[in-house]
């Protein structure tokens, strides 16, 4: 259903997804698929919210502490598989 996750590309929160702050991080709700996901750490929430500001997922991950990058990469891959985050429109698609 969704394209393979490519950390070399830029991603962003799917516009169909809302994040609800929770004590553990956030609850993500996809209005299209009606699915819930749980973002289990506050800095993962910040990472997801800030994805669109980076040209690639790898760039975004570089802002995170060394020891946690692999875990966050896996979390982002899962979020991409659930269509919670999507590739940024390519430059040529931008207005």
């Amino acid at each position, binding site marked *: 259903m969704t394209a393979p996750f490519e950390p070399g590309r830029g991603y962003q929160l799917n516009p169909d997804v809302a994040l609800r702050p*929770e*004590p*553990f991080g956030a609850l993500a*709700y996809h*209005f299209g698929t*009606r*699915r819930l996901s749980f973002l289990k750490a506050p800095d993962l929430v910040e990472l997801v919210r800030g994805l669109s500001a980076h040209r690639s997922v790898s760039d975004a991950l570089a802002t995170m502490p060394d020891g946690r990058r692999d875990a966050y990469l896996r979390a982002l891959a*899962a979020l991409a*598989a*659930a269509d919670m985050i999507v590739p940024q429109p390519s430059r040529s698609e931008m207005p």
Partner: protein
Amino acid sequence: MTTNCEPAPSERVPALVEQFKGGLAAPICLTWEWTYACNLSCVHCLSSSGRRDPAELTTAEMRSVIDELRAMQVFYVNVGGGEPTVRPDFWELLDYAVTSQVGVKFSTNGLRLDAERAQRLAATDYVDVQVSLDGASREVNDAVRGHGSYDMALRAMENLAEAGFRDFKISVVMTRHNVPQLDEFAAIADRFGAQLRITRLRPSGRGADAWHELHPTDQQQREIYSWLVDRGDRVLTGDSFFHLNALGATPLPGLNLCGAGRVVCLIDPVGDVYACPFAIHDAFRAGTVRSPGGFAEVWRSAPLFADLRTDTSGGACRSCSAFSSCQGGCMAAKFFTGLPLDGPDPECVKGHGASALPGLDRGGLPRPAKDHSHGGQAVPLGMPSVRVPAKLCDSSPLADTA
């Protein structure tokens, strides 16, 4: 489609259970009953519904609660009753919720689901429909839900299927008489392109009386467990069978947790907020949406909810080898059968609950806080239009279902 109560397997993260115990910023599984009025008189009705309550929330109050839910980012509500579709403003409120980004799954006995409604529903995004059916045959169903209710539900399902409404839910409360029909229920769901949902019979509402005769036997509990393990994720359960997890090494999908006051709660038709849909009793009443702080204040600050969000002692169950599997079971089931809340569930698979149940004299058991049952003799089921209301509020105040 997946409802918030029933996250897909990839989203079930065990560690979250611990997080959930402390409560969430807002419920993820909110049941909201829109009226106590119902055309049926099911013997196990968990809300003792029948007659409308004159104090039910007005249209304006309902809209104001929807506004609150939107602000709290409650993305989905389970609407029930009574029969919610008998509210005259049902469709208006449904549209208002959906356009407020508060999705609705509503439970219905099928009363208002004619072909035209079914088509409109199929064309409406963000609405899901759950048709109640408690027997895969007319005999088994109508013995619990009343004469004519099987045909009414099947007609509604046909209309939904013909309208192209995919994956609507068929909701079955498991009883001693319908456990042998599990495969037949699955076949009915397949026939209509629907999804089967089975849930546990609770001794709540009128079910407090019916439970002792209707709840599945020990052997049937094992059948339900095995059947669910085999079926995997194709069948929804609302996580209601977690007390069966002690039966085997394979945990049933879902949160192994009593969500009352933590991720779940109930708003009843008069705006009272209870810890869960199966606990309509003053002991579990947290407040009312009519108080100045509204629903949000109740959810965040009710002392009852704060209490439910602390870890339970586990009491007598703590020393049991199965405690980590079943977590002591269902609070409401214990309460209405007279068992201590920190003790075993009445359907404890180790048999600890059954042996502790009071004997035949059940006179001292807690009674539901509200009883809106149709008065007099058992009411023949059917279309409300053929019944003459004894009082003004016996007529249905609200109107249709999805």
